[in-house]
């Protein structure tokens, strides 16, 4: 599988309150509504800049904070297809896979906003077409690949009804 999209860059320690503020998530389960507010405390125009299929690129500890699954789901609803970061907070990382949002742990230091990126999931390579550089992502554990391949935990559970041996 290959994905191609444009990068929107942010810094280190992007927490779940920045991704989607608590003041919205307690009111509604409508992800399209939440998608309009993603990242707005850091960039009020963010959701209007995203084109479907774009990537969010960040530094270390992306998704720290709350366990709210609304964070990856609202990112998906905003059109973001994958998040690339130097490292992820663990609950967000699991939630993203469970929602079918691709999370790629790799060196993101040379990627700039607006760069065109291609992610090759079979080789784990991220190519930056704008600066010609290629970085290799850290591979996922097998169970996460299986959940992602099914499209997330809901379709996985619909199919198997429980967790398959790892």
């Amino acid at each position, binding site marked *: 599988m290959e994905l191609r999209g444009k990068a929107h860059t942010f810094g280190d320690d992007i927490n779940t309150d920045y991704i989607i503020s608590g003041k919205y998530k*307690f009111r509604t389960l409508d992800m399209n509504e939440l998608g309009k507010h993603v990242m707005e405390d850091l960039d009020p125009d963010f959701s209007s800049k995203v084109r479907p299929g774009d990537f969010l690129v960040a530094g270390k500890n992306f998704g720290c904070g709350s366990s709210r*699954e609304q964070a990856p789901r609202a990112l998906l609803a905003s059109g973001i297809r994958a998040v690339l970061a130097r490292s992820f907070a663990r*609950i967000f990382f699991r*939630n993203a896979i469970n929602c079918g949002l691709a999370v790629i742990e790799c060196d993101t230091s040379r990627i700039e906003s607006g760069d065109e990126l291609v992610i090759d999931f079979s080789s784990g390579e991220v190519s930056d077409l704008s600066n010609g550089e290629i970085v290799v992502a850290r591979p996922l554990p097998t169970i996460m690949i299986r959940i992602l391949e099914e499209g997330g935990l809901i379709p996985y559970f619909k199919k198997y009804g429980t*967790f398959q041996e790892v």
Partner: protein
Amino acid sequence: MGKTISEKIFSEKTGRSVTAGDLVIADIDMAMGQDGTTPLAIRSFQEMNGQGVFDPKKIALVIDHNAPSPLEAVSELHDQIRHFADKYGLRIFDAGCGICHELMVSEGLVVPGDLVIGADSHTCTYGALGAFSTGVGSSELAAVMIAGKLWFKVPESIRVILEGRLPKGVYSKDVALALAAEIGADGANYQALEYSGPVVDALSVEERLTLTNMAVEMGAKAGLMAPDEKTRQWLSSRINKPCRLIAPDPDAVYAREVRLDCSRLTPRVALPHQVDTVVPIEEVGEVPIRQAFLGTCTNGRTVDFQVAASILYGRSVHPSVRLIAAPASRAVFLEAVRKGWAETIVQAGGMLVTPGCGPCVGTHQGVPGDGWNVISTANRNFKGRMGNNKAFIYLASPATVAVSAITGRITDPRGFLA
């Protein structure tokens, strides 16, 4: 090779000897959801074609984050939780009962050696009792409610040794903040913290919960302590089953060791907007405050109300400050009434709100105004955390919060203690 507490619990739950790094599927002893995460879990449960729950006695739902409801839409979500609990016979704690993490431990739903998941990041709190407890998302809560198990990577552990003795005016919250500064907001990512040392031994169970509560603020999957006689005693009135103690092996293998000499510690303050940007209170400078908040799953327990009330007794909250106090549970509230702490707080000019999460997450009850400085006993000071991204949140101990409420600026509590 010896095992850490985490490795011992996962070995027991999987029926084989496992070590850090192993991927396992393990049986869950308790699962918890709160009102911010459960409605989405119910929807996931339905979309997964869930026909029933694995064991209604092992699931608890708590309406605490946005309770009582400030909006029709929220009431509707609360109704969904209520109906789901009624349909499957689950234990539910409705608005007014208190905060999920306080209830899980004080109602005896967690015992040493348990494996617990909760759809809230501060589920790591129960590690103070010697349980492996960790936060998950809504879909994983749904999966656990159906199957009773979840996959885990057995984490490496960081051994945290808290040496010395806490000086007067320095509390477990100050230790938690000092550790966040030492380890960093992602320094324990994917790992477990295992706390030990004379300071842990000397702390009450309530004070220990403050430490493990903040493990996730360092990225940790769990924060654990070996339970002791104090734990057994504390649990004895809450559980009706035997309490089995669990301890790490002397030759357990740790990823690394962090030692903190607490004897020389002074009160600590986390500056906006990062929990690991922590300074000794002497270095805070002149910070006038508009709001002070006592409460949350970190510091809303009886010991915290006792400390705050002892400082507020006979004194007045500064005229430009709003002091909001939210007891962590109905039991804490009642204790505050019985002991006169509630009267002291209100008499001083503060206000008490419903037992629960209060203003911490910014959904109701005490959203700060633009440019306000807030001093809070909570665990997070992210920008926008309390509902306004133009406010500035400082984190400190209940003593520092109470003293600052009186003086109107962030103040060292040590000069105010009897």
